[in-house]
């Protein structure tokens, strides 16, 4: 019964939403239609006839999400096919070569990236608390095991912080490009 399901792993960064959209469209042209977008780049596809779909990603977090949001998209013929950490996966069939868009001006596209930035900024207080506590670690020194564990945790967390900062810079860059258009 599960023959119609295919799983694929593919990683996209937060600022690569357009590449992800293009890839999902390409999958559909091969007859693999997105059924579920999971964490860490785990995609579930349903096998079927190849179809021309436009996939579009919006970013709306839980608190802002309302019934009328979905209704406007559905009325306009869009199908909600996935949701992950605020990312909303929408798709609509491409008919007569007319590629449908959920955002039809730069201003609304910019707003989407601003919502994404707002989401990433929320983590900064946690980062600051963590970094501020780094000095306290020195008092643990000589503690052997716990000290080493803390060093490892610190390193992992530091990488996460750097990725967050880099993501924000890349998203800011996209906003700047859109504003110039």
């Amino acid at each position, binding site marked *: 019964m599960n023959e119609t399901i295919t799983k694929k792993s593919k990683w996209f960064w937060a600022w690569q939403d357009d590449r992800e959209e293009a890839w999902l469209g390409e999958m559909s042209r091969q007859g693999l239609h997105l059924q579920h977008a999971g964490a860490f780049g785990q995609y579930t596809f349903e096998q079927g006839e190849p179809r021309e779909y436009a996939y579009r990603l919006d970013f709306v977090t839980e608190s802002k999400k309302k019934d*009328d949001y979905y209704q*406007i998209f559905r009325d*306009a013929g869009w199908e909600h096919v996935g949701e992950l950490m605020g990312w909303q996966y929408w798709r609509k069939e491409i008919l007569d070569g007319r590629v449908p868009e959920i955002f*039809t*001006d730069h201003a*609304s596209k910019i707003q989407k990236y601003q919502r994404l930035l707002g989401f990433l900024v929320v983590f900064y207080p946690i980062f600051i608390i963590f970094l501020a506590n780094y000095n306290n670690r020195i008092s643990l020194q000589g503690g052997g095991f716990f000290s080493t564990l803390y060093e490892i945790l610190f390193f992992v967390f530091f990488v996460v912080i750097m990725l967050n900062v880099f993501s924000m810079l890349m998203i800011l860059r996209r906003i700047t490009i859109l504003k110039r258009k």
Partner: protein
Amino acid sequence: MAENSITKYLPLTEATYYILVALVEPLHGYGVMQKVETISESTVTVGPGTLYGAFTTLEKEGLITMVKEEERRKSYALTGKGKQVLAEQIRRLQIMARNGQTVLPKL
């Protein structure tokens, strides 16, 4: 001062202009999309993401207000302020169009 409270919203973008024009009568999201497509003779298309954002912004600015909610569909209409802003935009567009008409034969 009162003048400024209207002009600060101008000029409206093409999409915002058509959304406000469509809302002279109460309409829900998809109704606005269809009407804009029709009255603009397909020169302007408003996607659902753009429209949802525009509703949020225009409501916050007090140019439109929700008048009805039925089966998850919210209907909006122009407020008094929204009507004033739209009227001023139309007045400016008429000046622009008149100017355009006089130079058009020379182009």
